């Protein structure tokens, strides 16, 4: 249980419309602390000295809620693959290393304060079709609708998206294609989502563009940083479905 020393370069910004800058901190922390626990420790130190703590989003700290996220040394959620920043541990870093921490950057994700960004754009896309319309009534039988294993697996893989926004942060064009593609693939492949497949695609893509996200250049860095490892085949699914929806093959 060794302690490690780090030099932190953290982006500080008081509000959405103020200028931000990097601030340097030094910290000694147990190497098995998570990245967010390290920030907690830092904030305690700052507050003990009467300063304003570094603001960051977090909730479950189990890598399943999608609340946390920032750029650590130029990579969304830090250097580990399929890991949200709450599941990143300080043992990943070398003793004495300088760690740069920045907020996710995109026009559609305006900075609220420090490392906190406003990801409501994702909610507004979700509202356009990230659901299925069902009549209320008694609960249907669990296996009344037959779904093939492979199809169920593909849909569920897409459904693991936690909406953290790392895909947008890592994309050179700040595109939300992986997020939207995952949503469309999740609902589009399942029989419950099929009746609204075309409408859902058109509405969610339109909202994605209206929010100011960029176009996808097929770099695939979104897949590399995704804490859930969602494949860019979801983006291919979206592109295909968008064409089919426009051609009227999907209603």
């Amino acid at each position, binding site marked *: 249980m060794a302690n490690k020393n780090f030099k932190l370069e953290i982006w500080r910004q008081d509000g959405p419309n103020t200028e931000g800058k990097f601030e340097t901190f030094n910290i000694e922390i147990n190497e098995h602390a998570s990245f967010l626990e390290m920030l907690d420790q830092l904030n305690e130190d700052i507050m003990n000295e009467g300063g304003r703590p570094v603001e960051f989003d977090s909730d479950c700290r189990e890598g399943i809620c999608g609340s946390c996220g920032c750029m650590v040394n*130029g990579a969304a959620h830090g250097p580990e693959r399929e890991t949200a920043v709450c599941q990143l541990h300080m043992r990943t870093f070398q003793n004495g290393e300088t760690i740069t921490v920045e907020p996710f950057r995109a026009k559609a994700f305006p900075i609220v304060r420090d490392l906190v960004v406003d990801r409501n754009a994702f909610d507004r896309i979700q509202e356009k079709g990230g659901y299925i319309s069902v009549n209320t009534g008694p609960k249907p039988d669990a296996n009344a609708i037959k779904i093939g294993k492979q199809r169920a697996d593909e849909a569920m893989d897409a459904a693991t998206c936690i909406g953290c926004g790392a895909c947008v942060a890592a994309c050179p064009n700040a595109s939300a294609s992986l997020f939207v593609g995952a949503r469309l693939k999740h609902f589009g492949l399942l029989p419950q989502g099929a009746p609204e497949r075309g409408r859902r695609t058109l509405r969610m893509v339109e909202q994605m563009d209206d929010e100011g996200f960029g176009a996808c250049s097929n770099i695939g860095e979104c897949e590399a940083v995704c804490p859930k490892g969602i494949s860019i085949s979801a983006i291919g699914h979206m592109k*295909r479905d968008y064409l089919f929806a426009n051609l009227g093959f999907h209603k």
Partner: protein
Amino acid sequence: MSALKKMLFSSIGKKYIMAVSGLGLVGFLVTHLAANLLLLTGNPDLLNGYGAGLKSTLGPLFYPAEAALVGLFLVHIILAIYINVAGKKAARPIGYAKAQRGKGGESKFGLAGSNMLITGGLLAFFLVVHLWQVRYQVQFGSKFRTMLNGEQVGDLYRYCDEIFASPLMVVFYVGVMLFLGLHLRHGFWSAIQSLGAMKPEWSKSIHALGLIIAILFAVGFLIIPIWMHFGMAARLFQ
């Protein structure tokens, strides 16, 4: 806005156009490389005859076909600038202070994928130089004319022979062809993905096919200036 216009103007629609125009240009490269490899034979009549034959076969369609090709290039170039310069700036007005680092795996964040605008921009610059050289100077100038089967045609062979005598031109052409290879290395795979024509199981194969196409075109084209500079046809075939 009509549904079609809305589709084509969306972020996905623009990439459909990029993909279709890009694949169209790859199709053009196939015929262009096949014809240019005639230069390797050392027989001037073959390429000169091909050029003249293209014009007489297409007849009144020659200039519309050429205009369509120019249009394909322009659409591809203008959209690329729109998406990659204006679009990028709009989607992320303030960039990262720490240079972004790729996380590897299936990511194409690297030399070819991240520099499409630079490789494409160089190709566009080359296109202008190349058109001025072999299209304008040979077809509209009076210096490079020759007789073939009793008709006056542009002497493409002699023109290439003369410009590739200069080592500088050889380096320029070879360099640009390496950039073409890089551009195709990401471009081909990317076009298939943009069109949603990729099954997940195909992804690796299509990406590998992109590499093969990139190497074939880059090597196919860059061998010509080197071959002509060193007079390989004369050395081998006589």
